């Protein structure tokens, strides 16, 4: 039998040569191709933006930056964006903390419903709340009319509310995680020593959770300033960076100014990404020592319980109402004005074409993204070559970069040779693949963390060469990560607006773009109906991800970046 093992050495012929070449070089071939893909589809567009912001008709210049800082219309969009980011951040840390405190320490009957409401916005694109808030508080809004208010939703209040609702799950999940990982005996000890609950929250819970709260806050900030849909729909005449970037291109065709705006928007994002990943990494007190018991807690003190419940429950109600009016709005003529039942919105051909286009694009992006993500994860984890960490950083950066910036980068990078791609469905697919790559890569990496390198060594020990190990052992084991990456990319592509809006051509609408345009025109019925269809598709995808998470312990559903 020894001969059988050894007998594999003296193979001859072309197949043997190809096979031994692949055995020796496959990882390098993968690494090389992936590097090339990342360079072309992530680095090159960003560099194009950077270049364009310094490159006028007469070569290198700072003129566009000077222009940016001399017109208040432009620099105010920076301040406005920062104000929006900070206010949303502060509100969401408070609201997220109330939710998370109640779901981890509050009355049992309230925990599950609150958690569901806090996570519900995950199943919808962020701009759903623009539509629902217009329906509720717009000029003919249900609540406006009901209470005879004269409330203007096209305002700061509107934008901030929509952003808070859209990113509630992000804030809630991160804070709940932190509160869950705090050792309950610390709070019990404080209580044992005679501290009141207010005192405990102030002196124990919040300080211990502070690093986690800070991380949540920073993420919310980045996501909020990068978000396009809500400020575009509700912002009115208030300038914001993401929206102005879009307008600079579609309105004025001013690529230089669009690039400057992009660079200005990207700067805080990059700073926070670095802060988050390198400065704050591993910070936090939330390490459990001893046994974290699921202790039976005493009832909350009213002085905490009542304000926390008011904040959480009213927010939860608005979330529920938002979904409710989307559903309702899909099936009535003009909600609040003419409440007769119609099926027209749901059956609208244009809406269905847009949905179908979105599905096609999302399937393509999902499939391609899962392949690239899985291979990247494998190469990053198992490859041995220089630049591995740079590769990982680039692959994960798509997540942190605002969609509008990548969108601008794509139209500038790919509207001329050598990569003439604009005007097709391919460029949209590629854009979504590389923007949402991070999650597929992370799923692959965490899967590979679960399986010991010994499994691959064992295969070699039993006589397998590299190619056999890769095909028969590695790929099957990574299959769940592949599927998770596929569905996540599919789902986020379905909802994605900020980047693809630059890339769609007239006559080829995606669902998200169609929703945005109909909402702009006040066609709330069509916007609602299309949103509802997206929600259904996303909800099904989330369900499948949940099943995967339960079966394999691979959880990517708690990511947000659409």
């Amino acid at each position, binding site marked *: *039998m*020894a001969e*059988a*093992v*050894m007998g*594999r*050495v003296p193979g001859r012929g072309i197949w043997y040569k190809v096979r031994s070449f692949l055995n020796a070089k496959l990882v390098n071939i993968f690494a090389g191709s992936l590097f090339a893909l990342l360079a072309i589809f992530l680095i090159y567009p960003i560099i194009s933006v950077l270049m364009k912001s310094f490159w006028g008709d007469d070569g290198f210049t700072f003129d566009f930056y000077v222009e940016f800082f001399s017109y208040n219309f432009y620099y105010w969009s920076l301040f406005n964006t920062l104000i929006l980011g900070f206010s949303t951040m502060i509100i969401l840390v408070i609201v997220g903390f109330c939710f998370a405190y109640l779901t981890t320490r509050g009355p049992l009957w309230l925990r599950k419903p609150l958690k569901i409401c806090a996570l519900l916005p995950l199943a919808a694109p962020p701009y759903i709340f623009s539509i629902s808030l217009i329906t509720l508080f717009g000029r003919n809004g249900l609540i406006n009319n009901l209470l005879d208010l004269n409330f203007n939703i096209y305002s700061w209040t509107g934008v901030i509310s929509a952003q808070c609702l859209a990113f509630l799950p992000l804030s809630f999940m991160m804070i709940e995680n932190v509160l869950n990982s705090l050792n309950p005996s610390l709070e019990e000890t404080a209580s044992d020593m005679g501290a009141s609950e207010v005192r405990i929250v102030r002196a124990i819970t919040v300080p211990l959770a502070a690093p986690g709260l800070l991380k949540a806050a920073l993420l919310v900030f980045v996501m909020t300033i990068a978000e396009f849909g809500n400020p575009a729909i509700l912002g009115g005449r208030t300038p914001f960076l993401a929206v102005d970037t879009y307008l600079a291109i579609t309105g004025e065709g001013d690529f230089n100014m669009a690039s400057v705006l992009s660079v200005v928007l990207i700067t805080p994002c990059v700073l926070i990404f670095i802060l988050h990943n390198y400065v704050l990494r591993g910070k936090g007190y939330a390490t459990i020592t001893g046994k974290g018991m699921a202790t039976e807690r005493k009832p909350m003190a009213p002085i905490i319980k009542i304000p926390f419940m008011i904040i959480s429950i009213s927010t939860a109600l608005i979330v529920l109402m938002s979904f409710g009016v989307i559903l309702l709005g899909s099936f009535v003529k003009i909600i609040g004005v003419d409440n007769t039942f119609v099926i027209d919105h749901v059956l609208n051909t244009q809406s269905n074409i847009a949905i179908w286009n979105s599905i096609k694009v999302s399937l393509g992006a999902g499939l391609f993204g899962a392949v690239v993500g899985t291979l990247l994860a494998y190469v990053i984890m198992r490859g041995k070559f220089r630049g591995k960490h740079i590769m990982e950083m680039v692959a994960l950066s798509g997540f942190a970069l605002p969609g509008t910036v990548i969108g601008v980068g794509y139209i500038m990078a790919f509207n001329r040779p050598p990569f003439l791609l604009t005007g097709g469905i391919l460029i949209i697919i590629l854009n979504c693949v590389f923007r949402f790559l991070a999650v597929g890569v992370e799923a692959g990496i965490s899967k590979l963390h679960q*399986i*010991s390198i*010994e*499994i691959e*060594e*064992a*295969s*070699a*020990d*039993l*006589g*397998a*060469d590299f190619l*056999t190990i890769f095909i028969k*052992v590695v790929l*099957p*084991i990574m*299959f769940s990560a592949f599927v998770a990456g596929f569905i996540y990319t599919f789902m986020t592509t379905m909802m994605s607006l900020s980047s693809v809006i630059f890339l769609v051509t007239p006559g080829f609408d995606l669902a998200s773009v169609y929703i945005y345009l109909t909402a702009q025109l006040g066609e709330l019925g069509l916007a609602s109906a299309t949103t509802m269809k997206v929600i259904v598709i996303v909800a099904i995808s989330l369900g499948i991800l949940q099943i995967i998470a339960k079966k394999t312990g691979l959880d990517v559903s708690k990511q947000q970046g659409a």
Partner: protein
Amino acid sequence: MDGIKTPMLELRDIYKSFGEVDVLKGISAKIDKGELLTFVGPSGCGKTTLLRIVGGFTTATSGQVLLDGEDIGKLPPNMRNTKMVFQSYALFPHMNVRKNIGFGLKLQKWPKDKIDKRVEELLALVHMEGLGDRTIDRISGGQQQRVALARALAQEPKVLLLDEPLSNLDANLRVVMREEIRNIQERIGVTTIFVTHDQYEAMSISDRLLVLNDGVIQQIGSPIEIYEQPANEFIAGFVGYVNFLEGTVDAIDEGTNTSYVTTKYGKLELDHNQEEIETGDEVLLVIRPETISLSPSHGTERPNTFHGTVESQMYAGNLAKYTVKFGDNEMVVDHYNPMGSEKFSKNTKVKVTVPRAIHVLKR
């Protein structure tokens, strides 16, 4: 071939360094056919690295690995006829028990019916009949261990390598599986290298132990040799507790085979059976706690006896453990089967008698 020991595997002067760190510093050893040899030593001693060099997962910086006389040191794992059971078992999670065991055979292009037959044989060998269709997550830790063993044995390797195979099992199961592995190994007679950091595990499973420390072989020998004739202080202290006592050899009487040793507690008369010990040598006496006897201090005087005071005592049923103080020094005494004999409480004056048969280390 009975009776004649032929080396199956030979390690010749193996060095291994990771960057600046020298992990193995010249390891040479011969492993006989059918033998179970344990690599044992504290963590970081290089035992797993040595095993991985034999398996082909790491290459030695210099030195040779000879399998049946052939240098396999440069071959990748899939080209050498050594098979490894990994610490984590490394079972393929996407295959059932049967497929895991048959994986290597399939790679060798065995016909399906022969694979099935061989897998059944192996399932029977490791007492897992009827569990072939289970998935890996549906069997217990001990069963996973058996599958990993069966998978490694499927291709009838010349040398079986076991990398801390019991470390993931709980204490009771560890003992059961230890005996089981030894049983199967003896039954099929496969040459085996077993890596462990647990001295007792090594003692109880091995034909011979190779004790490593700091990248150097401290001693190779049977469990009896390791315990009763340790080569140095490290080995003496490695298995079980030991009282060390410094002394000088005053005289040796070849006629009665007695050596006379002076220690700071008094003079001792010991059996002289270690040729390397000569008159005038500075020596270290290796005194095992269970070889010492205690008696009340008023009794009759005997040779090899010191007077001391009980510093502390612990009664554990099968064993009474005492620490006896002599001035600034202490000695641990284990009194096995103390039932019915005299117990000594704290601060009692006692006589401590050490036996004549004591292993002596030259300093």
